[in-house]
């Protein structure tokens, strides 16, 4: 994994985390917004400016890829690199959580 990907995605923003998590199945930006709102009981509401910018950036970084277009909505899916990054991030969060539990 190259340095740029490591620098941007380890650790990653909550937005990037949810995008990768949701795109294990093909979906479009607004679909992700709705999924995240449901998953977090409305605590996290992703916004269109952030979503559009993040999706194009993540596509360029090759952690997600464009699948097809449906009704003017771009549908994306996670790539192998994206899955790898997501796993690293999950391990990092898990480690943090464990340390905190031991300490508290």
């Amino acid at each position, binding site marked *: 994994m190259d340095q740029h990907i490591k620098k941007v995605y380890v650790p990653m923003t909550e*937005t990037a985390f949810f995008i990768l998590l949701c795109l294990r199945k093909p979906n479009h*930006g607004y679909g992700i917004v709705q999924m995240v709102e449901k998953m977090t009981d409305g605590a996290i*509401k*992703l*916004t269109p400016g952030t979503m559009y910018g993040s999706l194009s950036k993540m596509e360029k970084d090759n952690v997600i890829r464009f699948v097809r277009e449906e009704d003017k909505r771009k549908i994306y899916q996670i790539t192998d690199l994206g899955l790898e990054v997501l796993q690293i991030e999950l391990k990092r969060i898990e480690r943090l959580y464990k340390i905190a539990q031991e300490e508290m």
Partner: protein
Amino acid sequence: METKKQFKWFTIFEYEKEQDYLRDMHRSGWKFVKVKGFGVYYFEKCTPQDVVYQLDYNKDGLAHKDEYLRMFDDCGWEYIQDYAGYSYFRKAVSKDGVAEEIFCDDESRFQMMQRVLKGRMLPLLVIFFATLLPQFLINLLSTHNYFIATFIGGILAMYIAIFAMCFAKYIQYKNNKK
């Protein structure tokens, strides 16, 4: 319908100020219709309402306009127009008083600023170093045309002031993010 025009000038990084201005106008019963030319804002009379205005600067979005606008429309944002690379959106503040924004993390706010910097600042820098600065020096030192030199010098001073302001704002943003 009663309408009115206002001239307003916002420098490169003042899009937040511009957003506040449009929101204030709507709150006092003037709904933004369009901006044209050299900063002329058109309004029409409306019932006063708290409506959030937001500006995005996204060339990639403008290149894929259908998908770009669809995303904002899906999320409940009304698209108004494009102007100088910016796209204008608005959304009424919800009944529970939540004023939404189009960016939800500092990372993407910062990226927006970088896009503005790249799209609007670089051309200015090119003009500065490729034409203004050499012209100033030629008139001042070689042809001794002090009248023109003073004139260009004035523009140069304005440029430098804008650069300094942008730079300060950029640093402020960057520190905020950390």
